[in-house]
């Protein structure tokens, strides 16, 4: 590989990334990813929009930035193709990307990150960092447009994915990891760990359904709390002020009356 002269191949991180490059070398119909020619720590990837969603038929391209501490710290994902779910040119907030480093596990990999990204596309954004909530029509329009999108270094992205190589099936372990990832995101935004005990019994789609059901309210509540808090404070302090002025005025009036009574007699 061309990296051998450039990087210390004895470094575990370099060894690991070269191994991952080998593993992801062949494109599948679901995703493909490769390191840039001159930088093993920056990759470009392409994923297919998940079927039976707003993104069906779309092809989305982006960058993966790997921190020097990889795989101890998570990769950052940046989408480049407009898609209506994630802002482009912005590090996006999956529970396994860099914004929530505490949930990342070194035994996950770039493949895990891509699978998580695909699984996350149809979930509601709810105003989290880097999220967009475009309508179905807008997303479908963007999905069609994405087929002619070009990357400066990779060319026309629609040609990058394989048309006949079946996707590598998601193993049981990976499915479990994906469940964990999805669950993590849910916990992070709703603070309801009570679902966790039933995870084994629910299928992923059910889980997603639940997330759609529960997330909006609770999240709005959270946001509302954040926004409202300062106002409540100022309101309560202005309330206090109002009452003190009232009490002071009344006291003053009483004293005045007493004094008048005393001196006018």
């Amino acid at each position, binding site marked *: 590989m061309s990296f051998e002269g450039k990087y210390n191949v004895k*470094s*575990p991180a370099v060894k690991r990334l070269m191994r991952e490059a080998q593993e992801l070398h062949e494109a599948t119909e679901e995703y493909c990813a490769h390191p840039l020619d001159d930088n093993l720590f920056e990759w470009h990837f392409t994923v297919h929009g998940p079927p039976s969603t707003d993104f069906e038929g779309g092809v989305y391209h982006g960058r993966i930035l790997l921190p020097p501490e990889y795989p101890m710290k998570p990769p950052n994902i940046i989408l480049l193709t407009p898609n209506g779910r994630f802002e482009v040119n912005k590090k996006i907030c999956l529970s396994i990307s860099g914004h929530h480093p505490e949930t990342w596990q070194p035994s996950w*990999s770039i493949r895990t990150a891509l699978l998580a990204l695909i699984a996350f596309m149809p979930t509601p954004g709810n105003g989290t960092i880097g999220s967009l909530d475009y309508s179905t029509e807008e997303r479908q329009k963007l999905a069609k447009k994405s087929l002619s999108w070009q990357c400066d270094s990779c060319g026309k992205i629609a040609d990058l994915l394989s048309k006949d190589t079946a996707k590598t099936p998601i193993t*049981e372990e990976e499915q479990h990891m994906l469940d964990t990832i999805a669950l993590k995101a849910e916990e992070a935004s709703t603070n309801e760990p009570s679902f966790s*005990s039933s995870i084994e019994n629910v299928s992923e789609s059910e889980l997603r359904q639940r997330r759609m059901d529960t997330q909006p309210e609770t999240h709005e509540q959270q946001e509302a709390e954040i926004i409202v808090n300062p106002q409540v404070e100022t309101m309560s302090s202005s309330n206090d002020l109002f009452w003190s002025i009232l009490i002071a005025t009344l006291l003053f009036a009483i004293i005045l009356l007493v004094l008048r009574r005393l001196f006018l007699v």
Partner: protein
Amino acid sequence: MENKPSQQKPAENTEVNQDELILQQQRRIEKEISESIALVGEKEPLQSLEREYLEDEVYLSKAKTLGQKYSYIRRTRPDGNCFFRAFSYAYLERLIDIKDEFEKFRELALKSKDNLVSLGFPEFTVEDFHDTFMEVIDKVGAGTEASRLELHKLFNEQGYSDYVVVYLRLIASGQLQREADFYQHFIEGDRTVTEFCHQEVEPMYKESDHIHIIAMSAALGTGVQVRYMDRGAGTEATAHDFPEGVPPAVHLLYRPGHYDILYP
């Protein structure tokens, strides 16, 4: 405290700014720590511990009593991985001198990968950590004076050092999950053992508690003695053996939030 000003800003920015500020501050602290404290330090006479507490009677008296039982201390970087790093360093250092125990450990380490894969850990990455772990073991296993230097060098190279920590975290997690019925009783809150492992054992930089130590010592069949040094009553740092009754192969000093290595 530094977050205060951002709270005055418009609400829509609050979340982002807070996040960024916390991350920035965290990075600054991490950088400071990594610049000033080695991953694993040199062996120091125990008096250096006393010198830390000249102004603090409780700790000073405990440090002095500790000095009667232990001669040296080796400090580790407080990055949340200190238990696993201190434990593996101390254990491998001990094995340099004990050939048959080393062979036994090597055998166990070799088999550990298949055990983890059969428990459902992803083979592709577990293999990667396992290979590096075995590489470190074999480099140290020669049993010569050079082994000590090699051990110290590898444990101070972030890449190797962290890979050893990751793999030990996986082994501890495997142990907990294999005997989940037993360990479930020790887990606080509404979590299953598997969830606990995903949240508190496998991720890097997560601090270790009793349960991590119990799992680690059980998985490797190694006794660990921890001296707890805190503000509690008495003039001695309380000793705790994991598991009880097994002669300790590794001695650690615990001060709130941090583990260092002790030498009798």
